[in-house]
């Protein structure tokens, strides 16, 4: 077990709390940087998807995990970002400005959803975002002149400073860079007053308000930031697939994103990454598992949806803190061995919680 000896408040402000963090995250980064050297291009392509979903996961994590606002329409922002990027790059806008514009446009859409969302909460907010998701999907399908309608839209490979980034490896490095920047931005917010305001709103709106937090401003900000991140992920997604169509940004995609943050662990940045890995690895595992299953089950059409649903329910019931929560428990168990207690991570009972004023 590690004992931290703190001598300066600045120690608590740095991203890496101790030398262990520097070592392990440094090692992870080095592994990711040299991955194209030893992994096959198939796995590099998959890793690219993981990075894209991790950015989108970070976006939804800011909103649902940290601000406590539920959304089942986040694929809409992915769509807005993807179509904005496709349209802009096809009109000759360079990659970086197009990416920023896609993020900004998506953030604007986030504000549009966020404003009415100030009046509704919980399940009602979820329904409102669901409706927004359906509207956007429909707009993408009908607005032929811009989106190409149901026929879809081809997207060129990203061009950066005159170089065309063809192939999975070049794209992988691009996604890695964007993902790193997005993660840094989110971590920065979370260690400063803005991130704490989000957490305050999540845990108790009434007392957040009396601490001087402007609820409407911070909720809208959270929506905008979340939408911007998901929009940027969408822009990369468009380049990755090279072809986009409205049905990629429907309710199924929204549910996937929700699955990502819940399985990864609500309220943790690690959770966004673990969830993204889960989301990409799971379908492959199902495909592999089909070889070992009796044909009647293996060829059933709804197998993947069934597995996803079961996994989501299992996590909500047995591990509400998600994969990251599970990892924290394992780590604590090993650190404290043999003194780990069963109830250490048990959530507070509902009857001990105070009644809310509103």
């Amino acid at each position, binding site marked *: 077990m590690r004992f931290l000896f703190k001598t300066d*408040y600045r120690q608590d*402000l740095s991203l890496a709390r101790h030398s262990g963090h520097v070592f392990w995250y440094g090692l992870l980064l080095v592994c990711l940087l040299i991955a194209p050297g030893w992994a096959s291009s198939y796995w590099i392509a998959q890793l690219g998807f993981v990075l894209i979903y991790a950015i989108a996961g970070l976006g939804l994590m800011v909103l649902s995990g940290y601000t406590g606002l539920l959304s089942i329409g986040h694929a809409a922002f992915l769509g807005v970002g993807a179509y904005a990027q496709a349209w802009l790059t096809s009109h000759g806008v360079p990659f970086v400005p197009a990416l920023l514009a896609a993020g900004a446009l998506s953030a604007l859409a986030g504000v549009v959803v966020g404003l009415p969302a100030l009046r509704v909460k919980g399940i009602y907010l979820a329904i409102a975002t669901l409706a927004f998701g359906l509207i956007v999907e429909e707009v993408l399908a009908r607005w032929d002149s811009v989106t190409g309608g149901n026929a879809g839209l081809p997207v060129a490979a990203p061009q950066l400073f005159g170089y065309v980034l063809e192939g999975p490896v070049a794209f992988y490095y691009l996604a890695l860079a964007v993902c790193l920047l997005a993660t840094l*931005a989110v971590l920065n917010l979370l260690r400063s*007053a803005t991130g*704490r305001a989000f957490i305050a709103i999540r845990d*108790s709106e*009434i007392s957040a308000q009396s*601490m001087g937090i402007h609820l409407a401003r911070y909720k809208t*900000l959270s929506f905008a930031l979340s939408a911007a991140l998901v929009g940027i992920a969408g822009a990369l997604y468009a380049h990755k697939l090279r072809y986009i169509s409205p049905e990629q940004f429907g309710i199924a995609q929204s549910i996937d994103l929700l699955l990502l943050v819940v399985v990864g662990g609500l309220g943790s940045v690690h959770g966004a990454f673990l969830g993204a890995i889960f989301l990409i690895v799971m379908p492959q595992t199902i495909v592999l598992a089909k070889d070992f299953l009796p044909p009647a089950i293996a060829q059933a059409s709804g197998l993947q949806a069934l597995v996803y649903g079961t996994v989501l329910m299992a996590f909500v019931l047995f591990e509400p803190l998600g994969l990251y929560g599970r990892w924290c428990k394992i780590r604590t168990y090993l650190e404290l061995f043999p003194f780990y207690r069963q109830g250490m991570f048990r959530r*507070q009972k509902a009857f001990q919680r105070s009644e809310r004023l509103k």
Partner: protein
Amino acid sequence: MTDTLLSVRDLSVRFGGVLALNGVSFDVRRGEVFTLIGPNGAGKTTVFNLISRIYPPTSGEILWQGEVLTQLPPHAIAAQGIARTFQNIELFEHATVLQNLLIGHHTHRAAGFWADLLFTPAARRSELAARHKAEEMIELLDLQAHRDALVAGLPYGVRKVVELARALCSGPRLLLLDEPSSGLNVEETEDMAWWIRDIQSELGITVLMVEHDMSLVSRVSDRVLAMNQGQVLAQGTPAGVQAHPGVIEAYLGTVDDVASLRRAA
């Protein structure tokens, strides 16, 4: 009157058919501990919620240093220098004690969203300033042992103190304490009494509190206001209010009631 910090004038609030407050008036002077007492449902917490603008008054007004408070939005109250605690602790459960205290410092943040996003030197300075303030309060209220603990895992008594510390982190001039001793054991109540005195004398903060524990009330209060069913019964020194016939009647019933009970027995 220059020494009046908060002035409540003819405050009434109606929820549907219930008149929760009916023409309540009182002044809180700078530097005193002013206590509201009264049976359950007297409207004490309603007064607090009106001051923190959680709901608007039906009529009447609240003057803060001579200015009308009832025009301000609820989130602007903290910046005016009014901090509060809640009767049923409203802490940020899934954050650490330190984070809770830092959120208390929110109104003094010196960096905006973009500075936070890039964690510029300005954001870093703002964070350090918040941390210094939080550590002062941790020192004052002996919370060192719980600094990095999640609130969700803390015992009730400690949470009460954390909530007090969080309110103090905003650097208030007026502190609203809603039942600071409820749910505390005898020793914790003892500590709370000392701290309220310290807050008043060392930090120079005016305290307006709602409290049921009469021994605590008489130890720390300079003046007491007794309420019943939304109306003011009596106002004055703790001993004077306790001896007031109307107050005794509100708590214990009239002499006739007692006599009738006696006959029945």
